[in-house]
């Protein structure tokens, strides 16, 4: 399913999603953006270790496994970003002293990996039926040397770009939950990228609806 925004300039790659494909986790999802794909599995709310439990809310843990090699400092940094985004939407106060574990496995990386991880994480949260205050989606923007904005860049476009910005956009009022930048850009450029990402978020949320509808209309 190829999605195209108004104006035709900012085009997202074909998306694909499969929910509930793993039998052991409480929720699982695989999300494909072009050739980039991430598999997410969610366990929870489950019993937490006493050292990790929080008295008034659920303790959320994210593990990101790269395709090749052991997780390094970059994966830890992305885990922190994903965890903080999920903590902003998950209603953890409904499940105190429990642990929610989200494990993400990178299956292939062809650009826009972090936003694919965000999308897979949200789909896994939906599939597990966890109480959420809002949905979120990830959008990556590449700022080319001449100033044009490309959404959902491929690996080659990311390499050539002057700056790469990834946003996590919430479904309520399109608020920004997370923003991370690689490279340098001006404040105006960042705001333009954010506006483009918020427009693209509408399309992604519609895709979420269609995926969930498809999943539950079968059974």
């Amino acid at each position, binding site marked *: 399913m190829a999605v195209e925004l108004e104006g035709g300039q900012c085009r997202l790659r074909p998306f694909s999603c499969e929910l509930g494909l793993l039998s052991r986790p409480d929720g699982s999802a695989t999300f494909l953006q072009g050739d980039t794909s991430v598999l997410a599995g969610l366990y929870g709310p489950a019993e937490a270790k006493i050292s990790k439990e929080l008295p008034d809310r659920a303790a959320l843990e994210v593990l990101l496994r790269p395709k090749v090699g052991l997780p390094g400092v970059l994966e830890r940094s992305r885990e922190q970003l994903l965890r903080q985004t999920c903590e902003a939407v998950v209603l953890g106060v409904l499940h105190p002293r429990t642990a929610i574990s989200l494990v993400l496995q990178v299956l292939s990386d062809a650009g826009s990996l972090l936003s694919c991880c965000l999308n897979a994480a949200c789909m896994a949260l939906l599939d597990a039926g966890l109480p959420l205050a809002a949905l979120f989606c990830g959008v990556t923007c590449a700022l080319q040397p001449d100033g044009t904005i490309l959404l959902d860049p491929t690996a080659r476009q990311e390499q050539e770009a002057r700056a790469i910005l990834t946003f996590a956009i919430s479904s309520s009022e399109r608020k920004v939950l997370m923003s991370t930048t690689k490279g*340098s850009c001006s404040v105006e450029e960042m705001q333009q990228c954010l506006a483009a990402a918020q427009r693209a978020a509408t399309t992604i949320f519609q895709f979420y609806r269609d995926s969930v509808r498809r999943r539950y209309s079968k059974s």
Partner: protein
Amino acid sequence: MAAAFKTVEPLEYYRRFLKENCRPDGRELGEFRTTTVNIGSITTADGSALVKLGNTTVICGVKAELAAPAVDSANKGYIVPNVELPSLCAERFRSGPPGEEAQAASQFIADVIENSQMIVKEDLCIANGKLAWVLYCDIICLDYDGNLLDASVFALLAALKNVQLPLVTINEETGLSEVNLKQKNPLTIRKHPVATSFAIFDE
């Protein structure tokens, strides 16, 4: 009495202060804590700086070593930042391998160096494909009272400006490197990034 109220109703405690547009320690909303910086205090390091933002204390030490450049980037040196949050700085950090916060902070500092281009790796190359500088930047938090990232970036910048690198030449006949400790040059710092952190208290 106020301490008990702070423990029982922390949000309400802060709201009382925010209504008067100030914070429990008396600061305005846009005001930084008292900042002090002490440069060059570690004589065993090639460059060092100690930064205090209020009670948050961060020390950065830079050591320069020589290494062969990577095969795919023969004209680039290395900058390796590492942020440590030892169990000394706050009781929530246990001793052992670095936790998520320390690793995420190390990645953040590496991103700041790379994105701002404050040190261009090509400047660290001595001889193309043969010899380059490696700058190990160790940032250690001694007292964690919030705003670690701002203090770390500040300490890193101050320590890098303090670095004096000896002149290294390669002897053409022997092919070995010669280090001249008498002649030292500072690093070329192209950009000076400053980090500022904000918190949004949602009403």
